[in-house]
C-alpha cells in the first residue's frame, strides 16, 4: 500500500502551476548554463586563434553573467525543483529518486566537477594561459552537458519508460525511446539560449563600437545554426512519444496544442530572425531586441516544458504513477477499501462542511484531484462541472478515464464518489448550510456498475493501442 501524504492547499493557484513555474525557470537557467559552456569554449578559441579581437572581453563578461545566474539561481532552483516536487507529488518524485538514485548521484559528481571547473576558470583565468583556460572551459562544458545527459534520461523515462516496464533494468529505463531525441533537442535549445544571452551580453560590454558588437553577435549567432535541426528533432521526439500523448499535443487537448504552437511559433520566430538577420544579412542586434528574442525563447521553453509535463497525462510517470499520485496497481484495491480510509489528515480548507458526506467529499477531492485541480481557482473542478446535474456528474466521474482520456480512473468506493459529487454540488450552490444528503443505495449500486464498466485501467492506453495491466 503506498503512503498517504498530507496535501497542501495553495488557494486559487493550481499546485501543478507552482511546480511548472519553478521547473520552467530552472530548465531555462540550466540549459543556458550548458549552452553557455559551449559558447565560451567557442569564444575562447576565437580569442586564442586571433579570429576575433574582442572575443576575450566577451568571455570575461559572459562568464560573470553565467556565474551569477547559473551558479546561484541555476543550482538553487535545481534544489527548488526537488522541494516543489515533494509539495506537489511526493509519490512521483519518490519513484523517480528511488529508481534512479545512482543516476542522480552520478549526475551529482558531474555537478561537482562543473562547479570546480567553472570556479577555477572564473577566479584564475586572467592569470592562466589560453590553453589552460580553454581546458577548464572544456571540462566545465563537458560536466554541464553530462548533467543534462543524466537528468534527460530520468525525465524522458517519465514519458516513455519503454522496455523498463517489463525488465525493470536501469539501462532500459534510462535509454528509453525518447531519450535521444530529447537529448539532442535539448542540446540545440541550450546552444540557442546561450547564443541569445550572448547577444544581450555583447550589448552590455562597455566601450565596444558598433562593428565590434556586430562581429561578436554574428559569432554568437553561429550557435543558433543547429536550430535548423529542430524540426527534424521535434518530429523524432513526437514520433517517439506514446500515441495517446502525441494525440493530446496534436489537437486532442486544446491547451496542450496551444502551448505546443506557442513553443513552435516562438522557435520559428527566433530561428527566422537568426537565419535572415544574423547569418544572411549579418545585422547588428541591439540589447532590446536581443532581450525580446530571449523572452521569446523563454516562452518557447515554457511552452515546451508544459507540453512535456502535460503530455504524460493521465500519468506523472507512465504506467507507474497517475498524475493524482495514486499508483495504477492500487486502483482496484482503493475501490474496495476507499481512497481516504487511511488518510489521517483532517480537512482544514473547508471549515464549514455541513455534513460528514461533504466532508468526506472534500477529503476525496484532496486525495484524488488536488494535484492538478483547485475547486474554484485554476482548472477549477466547480467550473468544469457546473453544467452537469448530479446524475451526469456521478456517471462522468465514475467513468472518468472515458469522460476525458487524459484523466486517471476514479480510485475510490461508490460512497466516496457520491460524497465527492455532493461536495462539488455544495460548492456550486455557494456552500449552503444546512445541505441535506440522503444515502440512496440504488444510486450507490449504479455508481458501482459504472465503475465496473469503466474498469481500473487508463483508457489512454487503449487509444495508444497498448495493452497494459498493472
Amino acid at each position: 500500500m503506498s503512503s498517504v501524504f498530507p496535501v497542501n492547499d495553495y488557494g486559487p493557484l493550481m499546485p501543478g502551476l507552482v511546480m511548472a513555474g519553478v521547473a520552467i525557470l530552472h530548465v531555462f537557467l540550466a540549459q543556458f548554463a550548458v549552452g553557455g559552456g559551449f559558447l565560451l569554449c567557442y569564444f575562447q578559441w576565437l580569442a586564442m586563434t586571433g579570429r576575433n579581437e574582442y572575443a576575450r572581453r566577451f568571455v570575461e563578461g559572459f562568464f560573470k553573467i553565467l556565474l551569477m545566474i547559473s551558479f546561484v539561481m541555476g543550482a538553487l532552483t535545481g534544489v527548488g525543483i526537488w522541494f516543489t516536487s515533494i509539495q506537489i507529488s511526493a509519490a512521483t518524485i519518490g519513484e523517480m529518486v528511488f529508481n534512479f538514485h545512482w543516476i542522480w548521484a552520478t549526475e551529482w559528481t558531474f555537478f561537482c566537477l562543473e562547479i570546480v571547473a567553472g570556479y577555477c576558470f572564473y577566479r584564475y583565468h586572467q592569470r592562466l594561459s589560453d590553453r589552460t583556460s580553454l581546458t577548464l572551459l572544456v571540462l566545465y562544458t563537458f560536466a554541464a552537458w553530462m548533467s543534462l545527459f543524466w537528468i534527460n534520461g530520468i525525465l524522458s523515462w517519465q514519458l516513455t519508460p519503454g522496455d523498463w516496464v517489463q525488465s525493470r533494468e536501469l539501462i532500459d529505463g534510462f535509454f528509453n525511446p525518447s531519450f535521444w531525441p530529447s537529448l539532442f533537442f535539448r542540446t540545440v535549445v541550450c546552444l540557442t539560449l546561450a547564443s541569445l544571452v550572448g547577444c544581450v551580453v555583447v550589448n552590455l560590454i562597455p566601450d565596444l563600437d558598433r562593428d565590434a558588437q556586430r562581429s561578436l553577435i554574428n559569432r554568437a549567432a553561429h550557435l543558433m545554426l543547429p536550430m535548423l535541426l529542430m524540426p527534424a528533432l521535434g518530429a523524432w521526439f513526437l514520433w517517439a512519444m506514446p500515441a495517446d500523448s502525441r494525440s493530446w499535443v496534436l489537437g486532442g487537448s486544446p491547451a496542450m496544442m496551444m502551448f505546443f504552437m506557442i513553443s513552435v511559433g516562438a522557435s520559428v520566430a527566433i530561428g527566422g530572425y537568426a537565419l535572415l538577420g544574423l547569418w544572411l544579412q549579418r545585422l547588428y542586434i541591439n540589447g532590446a531586441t536581443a532581450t525580446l528574442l530571449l523572452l521569446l525563447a523563454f516562452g518557447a521553453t515554457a511552452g515546451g516544458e508544459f507540453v512535456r509535463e502535460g503530455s504524460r497525462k493521465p500519468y506523472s510517470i507512465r504506467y507507474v504513477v497517475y498524475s493524482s499520485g495514486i499508483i495504477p496497481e492500487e486502483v482496484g484495491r482503493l475501490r474496495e477499501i476507499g481512497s481516504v480510509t487511511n488518510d489521517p489528515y483532517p480537512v482544514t480548507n473547508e471549515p464549514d462542511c455541513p455534513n460528514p458526506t461533504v466532508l468526506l467529499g472534500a477529503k476525496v477531492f484532496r486525495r484524488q484531484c488536488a494535484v492538478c485541480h483547485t475547486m474554484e481557482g485554476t482548472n477549477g473542478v466547480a467550473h468544469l462541472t457546473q453544467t452537469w446535474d448530479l446524475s451526469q456528474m456521478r456517471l462522468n466521474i465514475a467513468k472518468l478515464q472515458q469522460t476525458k482520456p487524459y484523466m486517471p480512473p476514479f480510485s475510490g468506493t461508490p460512497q466516496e464518489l457520491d460524497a465527492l459529487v455532493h461536495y462539488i454540488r455544495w460548492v456550486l450552490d455557494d456552500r449552503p448550510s444546512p445541505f441535506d444528503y440522503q444515502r440512496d443505495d440504488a444510486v450507490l449500486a449504479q455508481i458501482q456498475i459504472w465503475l465496473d464498466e469503466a474498469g481500473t485501467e487508463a483508457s489512454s492506453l487503449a487509444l495508444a493501442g497498448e495493452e497494459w495491466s498493472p
Partner: protein
Amino acid sequence: MSVFPFAQPPTVSFYLIVYVLTLVLHAIFMTYVLAGSLYLAWAAVFRGSEETPRARSAVAKILREWMPFALSAAITAGVAPLLFVQIIYRQEFYTSNLLLGWRWLMVVPVLVVGFYLLYVVKSRLISNWPLPVRIALVTVISACFLFVAFCWTTNHLLGIQSARWPQVYESGQVVASLGALTIRLAMWVAGAFPCMSIFVAWQLRYYSDRDGRPASQVGGLRALSMVASVGILLTLACAGGYLATLTADTRSALLGSQGGPWMMAVALGSVVQLNGWWLMRKNGQLSTSSLSLVTGGCLLMLTGAGFLRELLRFVQVDASGVARNAKSAASVGGFWLFVLFTVVNVGLMAICVRLVRPALRTDAETSDQQTESPTV
C-alpha cells in the same frame, strides 16, 4: 558489532553510511557559510578597536572573499545527502517537507537572497554605504542562513514525530517544543564555528606560506582559537542540554552500545581540537602539525555527530520501513556507474586544481596586501 549503523541489515548500514559521509562533506562547507556570516555580523556590530577593527581582520577578509564559493560548494555538496535521505526516510522526509509547507518552499528564495548578498558584501560597491546599512546587510545574510538552519532542524524533528503529523497538519504548529528546537539549533550553530575556524586557519596558513611569511606572523590565530574553543564548549553544553530533553529510551540508545562509540568520538574530537588550538595559541603559530591535529579532531567530531544524529532519528522512526526502503533501493542498478564516475570526476577536479596552481601563487585578491576592504 552493535555500533550504529553496523548492527542494522547490510543495505540499511550501507545507505546510512553513504548518507552520513555525504552529509559530513556538505557540513564542512555549510558550517563555513553559517558561522562565517555570523562572525561577520558580530564583527560589524562589535567593531573592536579603531586601530584594528575586526571587520578588517585577516579572518573577515578571507570570509568575505570565500563565502560565495563556500555557499556554492555547500549547495552542491548538499545534493547528495538530500538524495539519500529520500531513499532512507521517504515517508518521514516527505511528510515533514509537506507539513512545513510554505516555510519549506521559502528555503530556496531565502538562499538566493543570502547568496546574492554575499556577493554584495564581497564587492567593493558597499565601501561608500553608511555603516548601519552595512551592518543591516550582514545581519540579513546571517538571518537568511539561520532561517535555513531553522527549517532543516524543524524538518528533522517533524520527521521523528509521526504521531503529531495530523495535529500539525490541522494546526500548522510545526514546533512541538521551542526549548528542544532552540537547544538543538544552538548546538549545530555553535558546532559550525570550530569547523569554520579550521577552514579559515588553513587558508591563512596557505596565504602566509605563499607570501613567504613565517607561521608565527599569521594574523587571526587569536581570534580563531577563541572562536573555535568557545564554539566547541558551547556545542558540548548544548549537546548535554539536548540530551536532557530526550526520552529515557532515546537517551539510552545514544549512550549505550549503539551510540556510545560515536559519543566517544565526539568527545575525543572535541578534546583533540581544544588541545590543538591551545597549543597553537601557546606557540603563537598556525603550525601544520597542530592544524592537522585539529582538523582530524573536527572530522572525528563531525562524523560522530552525524551518526548520532541518525541514530537519534533511526530509533524514533519506523525501522522496518527504513529496512524495506533500503532493501528495495539496493535492488536498483547503477551503483558501479556512480563509483566509476566518482573516480573519474574526482580525478578531473584534481586536474582543474592542478591547472590553476601557478595562478594560486599570485592570488592577489585574498592576499593581505590587497586594498583595504570596507569595514563590514
